[in-house]
């Protein structure tokens, strides 16, 4: 290996760029950018305005946040429903007026005044909701009009009662407590805000109304088709927005005790800025309480900071407006391009050097055409028989890409029926001691099918690893399984980075994305045994009862792992430098193993595996159909001994009948072939095999 190769290998071992894509694929990335912006603003303010973050300032900020944040939450709900509410400022003013009329002018008890304020907010909000939700008016125009109407109502009532409001002060300690009191050092209004924010967060993220709201905002038509009452959901969004604004107004009134002609003017712009800046998408459907709070904090700290720096109010508004424009622009571009960026950076190839193949004339794996005479079974009936297995009565079972397990009846396998419907593509198959059929289902997990055909889940998750960015607790691509003598199920998961449909993309990465997992039926626990395997695929138990063989497809090798006995926990390479990509491994008669080779290594692909930067550019710049790929248009079966010596090689040279063989199963002197992209099962007579041997007997004895 040259020096530059060693450098490449080191670079890709530690900086392959895998994390960039994984982080971008997380849903919290939408919120990460506003949080980062908040941190930057905090830092900038601390530097520009020395001594700004005092206890008094923080207390004042938290009171402002209580009122401003509640209005931001109100607008967040509306924006998430796919609408907009410009009338929040006027509604706010009306609710302040209602509270003060209750407390100051009429001298009503606090509870009654609160009801008055909430009622006012609810009426204003519901009016918006009825117009927009049920009468299908445009949100922007409607709330612009109600903004003017509510403001006009305020302007008519307020001057007549102004002196009465200012002239009286309510005799209510609770009112003062609400405005100025603290509990455990926190302002009361802030605690109320925190409680409401928590409730709304739970509702939006965990409860049915929140999900419906997101659904309506994200895709109105789909939500309607899914049976959601879109009109009512929209109407309720505006109504709850009105109520939230009313609570904010009530807290505001308690703090100030009076109101002015300019109360709530310009509020819609600053709140909208907060909401968009926080990361709530104006397109609807995306956003959270956290977004709203971060946005509100950003806007409050910015405006407070600008005031501290003695910037004139108009400049203040100008800055806010500019920020809003930038945030809207960013939001639009982000929503549009996030998927595109992700698809460009997610594939992150790494360095994988395979040993050189021997010259063709010395190659024990030289091409032949012994599979050219295979007899097809179920031609055109099955699609994608990844694995094949036979039961004690010689019936043949296989999974299909339609999500079923098909049974072919002995002796001629001309007749077939759907044995079980799974829902995902069944890959590896194995019979347990009691004749149940166990299967790894792509995208789903490990399932058990009883002899009567009823399906039960065994496991679909494993323990989450501590340092993985993507959630690796869910099983994405369980591939093959085998059962130990004590009933433990060992299965491979080929990759944790790609779904079933994209498994070929994993070939381009060449990284150890896969793992070996064990499910213990006695405890019901599933645990990951080995990580960082290069597309672990076939698994089979060795006859010592203490170890298993597993194939690492892109690394072209088979390893042995001891799960019991004196060598427990160790792993060693069993066969390496195969001429193709090993898939399933199965036991054969006379103590041998059959290895299916998915395809043929090619020098150009081997070279590409040593050039990760080349593969990365290939993945970014050309269409997936045009990517260089291992030559899987050939098929091969290799027989190896108990100690790993090569015994026999069977090729389908032209790849017309059985390209990309993924599995083989020996049964009573015949070898059955499966292929994940084939429309047939193959059967070939083995001249030297034990004609009575079946896997069933080899595993579980005569019983």
């Amino acid at each position: 290996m040259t020096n530059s190769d060693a450098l490449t290998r080191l670079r890709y071992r530690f900086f392959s760029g895998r994390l960039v894509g994984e982080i971008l694929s997380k849903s919290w990335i939408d919120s990460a950018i506003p949080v980062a912006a908040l941190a930057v603003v905090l830092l900038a303010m601390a530097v520009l305005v020395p001594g700004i973050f005092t206890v008094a300032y923080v207390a004042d900020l938290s009171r402002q946040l209580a009122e401003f944040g509640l209005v931001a939450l109100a607008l967040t709900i509306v924006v998430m429903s796919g609408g907009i509410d410009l009338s929040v400022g006027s509604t706010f003013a009306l609710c302040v007026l209602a509270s003060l009329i209750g407390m100051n002018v009429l001298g009503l008890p606090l509870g009654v005044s609160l009801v008055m304020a909430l009622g006012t907010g609810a009426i204003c909000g519901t009016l918006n909701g009825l117009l927009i939700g049920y009468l299908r008016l445009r949100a922007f125009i409607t709330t612009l009009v109600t903004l003017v109407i509510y403001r006009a109502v305020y302007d008519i009532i307020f001057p007549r009662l102004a002196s009465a409001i200012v002239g009286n002060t309510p005799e209510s300690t609770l009112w003062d407590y609400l405005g100025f009191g603290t509990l455990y050092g926190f302002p009361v209004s802030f605690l109320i805000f925190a409680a409401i924010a928590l409730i709304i967060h739970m509702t939006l993220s965990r409860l049915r109304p929140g999900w419906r709201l997101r659904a309506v905002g994200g895709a109105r038509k789909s939500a309607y088709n899914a049976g959601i009452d879109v009109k009512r959901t929209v109407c309720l969004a505006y109504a709850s927005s009105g109520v939230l604004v009313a609570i904010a107004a009530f807290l505001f009134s308690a703090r100030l005790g009076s109101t002015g002609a300019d109360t709530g003017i310009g509020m819609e712009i600053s709140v909208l800025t907060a909401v968009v800046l926080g990361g709530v998408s104006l397109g609807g459907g995306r956003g959270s309480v956290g977004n709203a709070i971060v946005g509100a904090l950003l806007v409050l700290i910015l405006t407070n900071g600008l005031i501290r720096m003695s910037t004139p109010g108009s400049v203040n508004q100008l800055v806010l407006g500019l920020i809003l424009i930038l945030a809207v622009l960013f939001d639009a571009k982000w929503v549009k391009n996030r998927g595109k960026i992700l698809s460009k950076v997610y594939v992150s190839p790494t360095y994988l050097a395979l040993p050189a193949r021997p010259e063709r004339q010395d190659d024990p794996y030289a091409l032949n055409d012994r599979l050219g005479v295979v007899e097809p079974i179920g031609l055109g009936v099955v699609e994608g028989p990844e694995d094949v297995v036979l039961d004690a009565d010689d019936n043949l079972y296989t999974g299909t890409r339609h999500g079923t397990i098909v049974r072919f009846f002995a002796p001629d396998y001309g007749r077939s029926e759907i044995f079980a419907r799974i829902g995902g593509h069944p890959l590896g198959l194995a019979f347990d001691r009691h004749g149940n059929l166990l299967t790894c289902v792509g995208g789903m997990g490990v399932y058990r099918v009883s002899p009567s055909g009823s399906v039960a889940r065994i496991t679909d998750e494993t323990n989450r690893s501590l340092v993985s960015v993507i959630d690796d607790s869910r099983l994405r691509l369980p591939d093959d399984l085998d059962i130990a003598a004590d009933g433990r199920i060992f299965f491979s998961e080929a990759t944790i980075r790609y779904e079933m449909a994209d498994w070929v993309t994993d070939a381009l990465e060449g990284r150890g994305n896969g793992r070996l997992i064990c499910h213990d039926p006695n405890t019901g626990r599933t645990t990951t045994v080995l990580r960082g395997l290069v597309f672990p695929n076939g698994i089979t138990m060795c006859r010592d009862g203490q170890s298993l063989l597993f194939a690492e497809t892109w690394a072209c090798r088979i390893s042995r792992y001891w799960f019991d006995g004196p060598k427990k926990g160790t792993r060693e390479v069993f066969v390496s430098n195969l001429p193709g990509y090993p898939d399933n491994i199965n036991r054969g008669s006379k103590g041998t193993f059959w290895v299916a080779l998915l395809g043929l290594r090619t020098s150009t692909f081997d070279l590409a595996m040593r050039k990760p930067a080349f593969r990365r550019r290939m993945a970014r710049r050309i269409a997936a159909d045009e990517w260089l790929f291992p030559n899987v248009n050939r098929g091969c079966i290799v027989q190896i001994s108990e100690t790993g010596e090569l015994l026999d090689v069977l090729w389908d040279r032209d790849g017309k009948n059985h390209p990309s063989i993924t599995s083989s199963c020996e049964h009573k002197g015949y070898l059955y072939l499966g292929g994940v992209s084939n429309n047939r099962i193959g059967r070939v007579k083995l001249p030297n095999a034990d004609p009575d041997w079946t896997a069933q007997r080899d595993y579980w004895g005569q019983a």
Partner: protein
Amino acid sequence: MTIWSRFAKWFGRSEDDALSIPPLDGKLKPNSRLDAAERLLHLPQIDNLALDGARLICSSGDTLFSVDPAGWQTAPIRSFEGHITAVAVSPGGVLAVGVEGRGLEICAGGAWHSRNLGDANGCITAALFRSENELLVTVGSRHHPWTEWKRDLMSRGASGGVVSVNIASGEARVVRDALAFPYGIEIAANGELIVSESWRHRLLAMPPAGGLARVMLGELPAYPARISPASDGGFWLALFAPRRQLTELVLREDDYRREMMATIAQESWIGPDFRDHANGDQPLQSGSVRQMGIMKPWAPSRSYGLVVHLDAQLQPVSSYHSRADGHMHGIASILEWDGHLYIAARGAGALLRLPLEEMT
């Protein structure tokens, strides 16, 4: 050009655009007419169709054959010490053969003599008599022999040219040089030379004495090979292999390409080819994976069969295809004769015939 691509070019990113391949559309819409054509005979590496009076001749490897139209039997005329790379016959019956490593072998009046063209000997790709004494030849590359054509492509070679050879004196005059693998030559009605420049995927027209060339047909979706005249005043263009995004990418990946050329056998390289080789080391693109027993016709294969009928202005009129699931690939030589179109599918080793009246 939009303002954005101007910007892109300014920042040196215009190469990105070049990764896109023109689609097979319009007059080049795919069909399977070459696979449906009548197969007259099988001759491995059949190439260089020419008409010597009333006798059809063709080449295969290092041997020149004459074809008997009665039973489509072949009879060898002569074997040479190298691959036959070009064949031309003058109206007066002078036969010129380009032989790799030897130069031109000329047969006038039954006697053979050689003409040495120096470093052009290895890669004479096409020949055409302008008069009984003047032979125009296209030289694909002055750096690589014909059998190493893929190395020339992968070295981004542009050392080819058009040479005029005086048959009597053997004097050779360069009409035009610095072409990227010219692979076919024909003379237009106005006397201009039509040359197919394979590595740049285009047809050029240049004044008879040489000089500034015009692009007549560019952005071809495949690598053009030889041109022959059609009876309607137009031309037949053979395109021997398809362009692929992967090939274009590899042509820009200097590191990968250098190592590929240094360590891997030529027939296993990524890139165009006349056919797939049976050595089990063929590169595969993921769209070419056989699914459910079927090779998709639109799979990104390395080889393809394409014949295009051009009008007198060199614009496509119609096209004949053998797609990824077909076998009549690697067509480099066409001959219209006696109401039929004869097509040598070098990749399949087959001589095809299509009746002209059925063509539209």
